[in-house]
């Protein structure tokens, strides 16, 4: 479910790329400090984006340190702050339950990689879940809902997407300001809906061939896994509407120094990823990195 939300870094000026990298490194440091070394392996762009949203416009102080990725030269990163702590805990909880889900969904051999990932994350997860019991509860509840809908082969797009969207929007529950909480809730709901539907579109061919559940097959009758012009138009319309609702919510809050990154991601990056997914080039564009994608899935 991860790997779809990413800022179009090539379209951003160098100082914004550097700012995003500082947030990425900041989350990595926070993950290690709060949840232990294994937690840093779950680091990805999606969780960095979440950390930026939760910061609500404040740029944390910059610190410098050496790390495994930069053992010789000290690199600047966003120092710890409550938003990064929150993003780190929630990322670990999400990653852990996704891995557990993978164990349930696969047979013994294929499930091994998920089993290994969830074992490795167990200690980190315990710390994170103890710090955010409510988010942990919502995550478990919504993932259970999702797997029930998958088992009954729900022909609805909105129902399974709602489970993942609600799960993600629960990440906003701890925002202190009530307007910011409402705004983040709406943004994360529609980001979650978009991510779920993109993931379904990305897996469409594979699921159709393997006979796995995919809501798109049942909603549009795409048993051969190929889009028809009509179904593609209808699907694009509904995912674009989610981006519209995400964007209208985003415009109601001043995200300060993160504005260029967020604006480019919302008004350009998501569309580009969506287009690539629909034309089937998203996975193809990552050939040779298939392994990485799987690692991302396990984590």
């Amino acid at each position: 479910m991860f790997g779809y939300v990413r800022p179009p870094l090539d379209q951003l000026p160098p100082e914004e790329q550097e700012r995003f990298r500082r947030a990425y490194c900041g989350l990595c440091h926070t993950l290690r400090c709060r949840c232990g070394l294994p937690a840093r392996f779950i680091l990805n762009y999606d969780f960095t984006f979440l950390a930026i949203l939760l910061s609500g416009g404040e740029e944390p102080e910059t610190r410098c340190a050496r790390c495994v990725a930069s053992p010789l030269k000290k690199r600047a990163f966003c120092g710890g702050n409550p938003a990064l702590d929150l993003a780190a805990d929630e990322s670990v909880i999400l990653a852990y339950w996704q891995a557990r889900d993978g164990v349930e969904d696969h047979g013994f051999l294929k499930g091994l990689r998920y089993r290994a990932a969830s074992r490795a994350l167990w200690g980190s997860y315990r710390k994170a879940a103890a710090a955010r019991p409510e988010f942990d509860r919502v995550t478990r509840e919504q993932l259970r809902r999702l797997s029930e809908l998958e088992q009954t082969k729900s022909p609805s797009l909105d129902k399974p997407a709602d489970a993942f969207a609600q799960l993600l929007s629960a990440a906003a529950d701890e925002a202190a300001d009530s307007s910011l909480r409402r705004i983040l809730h709406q943004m994360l709901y529609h980001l979650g809906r978009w991510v779920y539907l993109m993931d379904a579109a990305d897996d469409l061919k594979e699921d159709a061939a393997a006979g796995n559940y995919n809501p798109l097959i049942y909603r549009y009758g795409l048993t051969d896994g190929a889009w028809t012009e009509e179904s593609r138009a209808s699907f694009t319309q509904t995912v674009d509407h989610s981006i519209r609702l995400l964007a209208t919510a985003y415009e109601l809050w001043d995200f300060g120094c993160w504005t260029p990154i967020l604006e480019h991601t919302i008004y350009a990056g998501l569309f580009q990823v969506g287009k690539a997914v629909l034309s089937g080039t998203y996975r193809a564009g990552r050939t040779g990195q298939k392994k990485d994608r799987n690692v991302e899935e396990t984590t």
Partner: protein
Amino acid sequence: MNDPYKVLGVPESATDAEVKKAYLELARKYHPDNYHDNPLADLAQEKMKEINAAYEEVNKLRGSSRGGGSRSTASYGGYSGSYGYGYGGGGSAQQSGSSVLQQVRMSINAGDLSRAEALLTNYSDHNAEWNFLKGAVCYRRGWLDEAKRYYETAAQMDPGNQEYRQALEFMNGASRSAYSPRGGFGTELCGNSSLCQQLCCTYLLCNGCGAGFWGLRCL
């Protein structure tokens, strides 16, 4: 009140034309049409009020410093228009065919979606209005695909009804009418395939020692 120039996002040295341009851009962004049936419409309305007040303030300041004279650039009344949901709350409310459906409209306006849903579930006559209201509840929940299908059914059952037709037209034209700071809005409009491909290539943030870092991520 906040600094009106800051609200409009222009320096004090901006020309009248620049101020007006900034104001119109903001008004386009927070326009009621852009927040149609949006659960955050109240926040957009506050923003719009703030922008209108700032624009009036700047015009007043500039008018008086140049020896007065009323200027014709007052804020656009139309832009502070209605953010209402139009399900029976305002003056131009649609009348429902039944008192239960009228209550559904009131619940939606009050943001009580669970009550609206419960009332609809217990209402056995699935007529055009029932489908329309069902769509409205779905829309407010973010269930956009089902919202559109209910609106479609409503418009099919009662093709002459303007309210149902408008709801469906809004769903069909949502990307075309969406605000975007850069013009185009929509997945299919994203034309530059080479850009898309570049994006798909994994971008190594830690470029100097990407290999080491990537190796770690692969366990």
